[in-house]
């Protein structure tokens, strides 16, 4: 028996490399042959990208509003024309606000802009001419936009008149500029953000499923009873899904740039550095989930709740972290996507801003190490 032990020690390194290669090869075959891997790694990402590229749009272009001109004068007609010309509104004209109150209730218009009968007279007399905006508060976000745009349109109209010398210029003009995304196209930041979600799906959901599947089918047990070490087992799982995650990300980036026309101003190196680091915590979490559940059903539920939803909701992707209650803000600090999403948006829209990336990479790396340590601890070569 001692002889055998010595024999095993000598070719240890070569054996390790070969075992590792064998595990990676096995995993790759499985990815290619298992429809659910393809589904999660390629179909689901396409659907998400598509939804965020087309379906979800925070751009309130052409909001339907009613415009009520209670008294038609050259002045009010001029104002009405500027509302009609606004690219933010799609205007229905009317004479009486009561015509549109039902439409507001039924959601057919988002707001009613009322230029009162006294407007022309008040304007001429300098008696605080007023434009009323009645908005549908049941959707506060749209309501806010309608208010802002109405205000903006009126201000523009006044500035226009001022430049034509027909009214005094405003005392202070606020010149507003939006950097990185001057047209405020929501697709430009939603699509990069959704790439982070795609990587969460591959890294956490898919990985936790495939590891749990090995437990369920008893192949994990057979593996463990071979000379493979726990570290080799883990690494053999991770490498294929790491590559798959990056592949899936690359595909998404190509679609984002070439199909959706999202600008890409940063460097490819930064993109891959960020994505690769992000996959560490994502994969680590996947391993941890599967090691803890050993059951595909529970793993999928846990992965969706603990990885997908936070990446979606608590990462600043759709909702501003700063606006959340403090307790929830604390939670967002352990959501890896919180660091990736702004950095990805930056790589796409702003360019390489390394101080920001360095911080994101450092934090994601740290979270990744913690997940790995926990996963390694729970994946001993032991059953039950």
């Amino acid at each position: 028996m001692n002889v055998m032990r010595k024999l095993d020690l000598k070719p240890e390194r070569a054996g390790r490399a070969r075992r590792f290669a064998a595990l990676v090869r096995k995993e790759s075959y499985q990815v290619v042959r298992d429809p659910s891997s393809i589904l999660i790694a390629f179909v689901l990402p396409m659907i998400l990208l598509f939804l965020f590229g087309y379906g979800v749009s925070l751009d309130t272009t052409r909001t339907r509003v009613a415009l009520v001109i209670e008294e038609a004068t050259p002045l009010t007609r001029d104002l009405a024309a500027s509302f009609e010309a606004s690219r933010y509104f799609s205007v229905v004209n009317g004479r009486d606000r009561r015509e549109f109150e039902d439409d507001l209730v039924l959601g057919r218009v988002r707001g009613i802009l009322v230029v009162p009968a006294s407007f022309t007279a008040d304007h001429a007399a300098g008696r605080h001419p007023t434009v009323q905006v009645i908005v549908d508060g049941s959707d506060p976000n749209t309501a806010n936009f309608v208010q802002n745009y109405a205000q903006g349109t009126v201000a523009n109209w006044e500035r226009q008149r001022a430049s034509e010398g027909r009214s005094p210029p405003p005392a202070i003009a606020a010149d507003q500029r939006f950097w990185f995304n001057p047209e405020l196209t929501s697709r430009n930041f939603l699509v990069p953000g959704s790439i982070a979600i795609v990587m969460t799906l591959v890294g956490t959901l898919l990985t936790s499923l495939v590891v749990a599947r090995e437990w369920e089918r008893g192949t994990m047990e057979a593996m463990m009873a071979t000379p493979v070490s726990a570290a080799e087992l883990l690494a053999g799982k991770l490498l294929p899904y790491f590559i798959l995650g990056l592949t899936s990300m690359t595909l998404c980036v190509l679609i984002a740039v070439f199909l959706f026309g999202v600008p890409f101003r940063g460097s490819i190196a930064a993109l891959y550095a960020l994505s690769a680091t992000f996959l560490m915590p994502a994969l680590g979490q996947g391993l941890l989930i599967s090691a803890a559940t050993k059951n595909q059903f529970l793993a999928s539920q846990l992965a969706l709740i603990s990885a997908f939803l936070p990446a979606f909701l608590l990462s600043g992707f759709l909702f501003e972290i700063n606006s959340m209650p403090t307790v929830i803000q604390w939670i967002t600090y352990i959501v890896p996507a919180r660091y990736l999403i702004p950095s990805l948006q930056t790589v796409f829209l702003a360019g390489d801003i390394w101080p920001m990336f360095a911080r994101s990479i450092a934090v994601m790396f740290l979270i990744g190490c913690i997940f790995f340590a926990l996963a390694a601890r729970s994946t001993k070569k032991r059953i039950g």
Partner: protein
Amino acid sequence: MPTPRTEIDAAPFVRLSAVTKRFGAASPALDAIEGVILGGRITGLVGPDGAGKTTLIRLMTGLMLADEGTVEVLGYDTRRDPGAIQAAIGYMPQRFGLYEDLTVQENLDLYADLRGLPKTERGRTFAELLEFTDLARFTARLAGKLSGGMKQKLGLACALLRKPRLLLLDEPGVGVDPISRRDLWKMVENLTAEGIGVVWSTAYLEEAEACDHVFLLNQGRLLFSGPPQEMTGRVEDRVFRLSGVDGRRRDRLARLLDQDGVIDGVIQGEAIRLVMKPGLPPPTLGTDDGAAPARASVTPPRFEDAFVDMLGGGPGGRSRLAETQRAFTEEAGRPVIEARGLTKRFGDFTAADSITFDIPRGEIFGLLGPNGAGKSTTFKMLCGLLKPSAGEGRVAGFDLRRDAAEARNRLGYMAQKFSLYGDLNVIQNLNFFAGVYGLSGARKRERIDLMTEIFDFRSIHDMSAKDLPLGLKQRLALASAVLHEPEVLFLDEPTSGVDPITRREFWTHINGLVEKGVTVLVTTHFMDEAEYCDRISLIYRGRSIALGSPDEMKARVASNDLPDPTMEDAFVALVQDSEAKEAA
């Protein structure tokens, strides 16, 4: 046959001392197991499901640690040196540990790499193993697409890649047809000749008889350790075969079992097999009912006889269930179950090919065959789970196509492993089954109370079904299936893996019900269960290759070499016959 060897070179491969393993607070899964496993022989770990066999094997692999005691494998302690052990053993877990979406060759390559088989040796080793397992033609096939027997052989091949010193096989025989099982056994026997130690765990007691050494486990305790002959020796000269019992052998058996001195009795084809208390003669079957007296002859004991004897004997012969059952009287000659040319095709694969048989009232009819042969397909067509592609089936006189619901009202269905709702407790399960069979009000209460009483559910009525021990699950499944007093019972693998006492109790009830005119259709790949049947249809590759009583089947294959074949012998011979005919 085991090759003779001296005791000196047989240093223990595995040494178990006071090994105890617990899961949760329940009684231990393994309780102070002691023993030694030697190289060069097949050691059987024998016992019903839940006895602790898998746990014991996992302890030997070092994948699981004992709570108390030590496990030493090939000189290493599993606690300290699991790596060294894993490098030197071959292990085939239940379900064989194969990757189903990898091909045969890819599975072999994977395990060869993991076990560090040098490249130079691969060609030869693969060729040898593929030849040995007869898988050479299938190297490009996905493992998931192999039959149970082929999977098992591939699993074995993977475990043997780098010739292990100790081979651990966890229930290699489950779900595999007897022919493959015999092939496997021969392969493993060849290995022992090279000095490899083999541990073979099984719930089939007949497999135990072929082992060199047996560990008999029951509920975590080691009941017996030694050569199987020593075990069967316990009941030597106490096992009798009563033949000439004619038609009413079930009724006879029931009465015999209640007699003093009878430890165990089962139906064996046309005869009754009895185990008597030491020194007692076989009971003379009285001629009080006018039947011809039975002839009793001493017959060689089997492992199961000794096991039941060791457990203190089987249950009595009375079935309260049958006593309270209303009798179904003979009607004008119409068979209760009819299958006429039943055929089921899935794409271009014919799972069942024109199966035809009749089952008269009060008969137990068996569909016997390996997994995947088509017996389940036939069974499912007859109970309405599958629509036949051709042919027709009738149950209790109702055509399954047109009056399926009427037919279903009259049948009870029990699939041992799948009948119950695990999350519902005992009473909720009974309530559910009573409800779906349309029992309500006083009748429902009465039937449920009766079942609770007969099967002794009162103390466990609020336990979830999934937490019940196997024996109780089986009782609950039976109770649920007969609540509505069905005319016909469909039993799918009703007692596989169950301990012999529970199995006897089950068959006592079934025998009693059959005496009352209930008709039973049972599928099994379990040769013992086949012996309870009046007639059997042997299903192989989608076709019925033989139909007749168990004794007829055995008689058909009896020869000078094999004067008294077992059911399994008959099965193997008939299948080989059919294959030979097909080849011709």
